[in-house]
């Protein structure tokens, strides 16, 4: 419970801080640093608790591609062309998506699971994930973020795997 009480404000603070920095138009280095800091909240958890085991790696990688395809499907169907992310922003997207997965589906999920079991972990991590995006997304888009959080946390629960969400999330961030 103590871990959860410390982790939740820390993760939300890092996410909101990143959003405010991006709004201020600072160099992508700062969002990259804060994204990296999100990875640090997973320090102290065992790979098993985070869903980072090496077994069935092929299936985990394929799961990540499948999650990425689902996350991108609505945009891909109606795609009308857009610029490719400039390299600094692409680097930021990769670091941030990995950091968010370690924080939300890794450490926070594990802490919530320890307190209230799988249902609390899946729903709780998705709700906190949506809260983490209130400064970067218009209100109408938060439902899509919540649904994405439920899908990624659902995978984390069903497959006990974090590799899939990391790959899916990174693909989505790079493409949108």
């Amino acid at each position: 419970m103590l871990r959860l009480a410390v982790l939740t404000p820390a993760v939300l603070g890092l996410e909101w801080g990143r959003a405010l920095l991006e709004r201020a138009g600072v160099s992508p280095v700062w969002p990259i640093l804060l994204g990296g800091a999100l990875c640090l909240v997973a320090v102290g958890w065992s790979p098993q608790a985070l869903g980072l085991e090496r077994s069935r790696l092929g299936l985990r990688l394929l799961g990540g591609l499948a999650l990425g395809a689902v996350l991108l499907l609505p945009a891909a169907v109606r795609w009308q062309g857009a610029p490719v992310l400039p390299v600094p922003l692409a680097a930021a997207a990769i670091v941030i998506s990995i950091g968010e997965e370690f924080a939300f589906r890794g450490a926070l999920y594990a802490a919530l699971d320890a307190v209230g079991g799988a249902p609390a972990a899946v729903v709780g991590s998705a709700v906190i994930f949506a809260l983490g995006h209130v400064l970067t997304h218009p209100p109408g888009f938060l439902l899509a973020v919540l649904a994405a959080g439920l899908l990624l946390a659902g995978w984390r629960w069903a497959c006990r795997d974090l590799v899939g969400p990391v790959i899916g999330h990174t693909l989505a961030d790079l493409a949108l």
Partner: protein
Amino acid sequence: MKRLAAAFLAIAAAAYVLVAWLNAPGFYDGLCPPVDYRFTSPPPQATVRTPPASGHATFKVINGQVQPVTAFTDDGQFQLTTVPGAFNPPPGGAALNIDIKPVTDFPAHDQYTFVTNVYLVTANSSIAKEARVALLYSTVLPAPSNIYLAQPNGSWAPVLSNVNATACNIIDARTSSLGLFAAGYPAGATRPSHNPGAGGQTLPLIVAGAILIVLLAGIPLALVRRRTGEAGRPKKPPRRRRT
């Protein structure tokens, strides 16, 4: 338990696709958030109905040289920047005045599809060096591939010099004349790509590739796992015959 997990994942995936369909483009991480673009004539898919803003800026002339210029509309949708001395000093020692206005009356542009407003940029002096124009564009329309400038003969021509995408949803280029500007792409180009990269088809290709890999690699992997599972499973003891 496995069935419950599979059902939950299927429902979560379907729910996400439905919600994301209603709020295009769906999940993204705020690196390039949607733009609430203010159109002079909003397309049906635009949700913002606020009219676009104009801009006005005054710049001093010091020692016969016009200072660096950064003029923009109040909503930030159009920006003009120059280096020192890019404008000739206005006559009579007056300050340089620049006006930027979104306009609805402009020459026909049959050859090009515009995705931004048309902006009229005027100054009380002529331009001497290249200036940089930057236009924000909406996320509800296709991305532009160039910035176009109205010509004295009433036609439109692309601003060919140094077209860039330096930030999300902003296209900029260098120009050596002022007048009417708009961003767009050649008419008939249904999926225009942006200049710096091949972004036009990237997303559909990524999704198609991901689906293909999942199908092509997932089926053999599932078969191997099934065979491995069957080989590792203990054989059932033979039934005893009733005598």
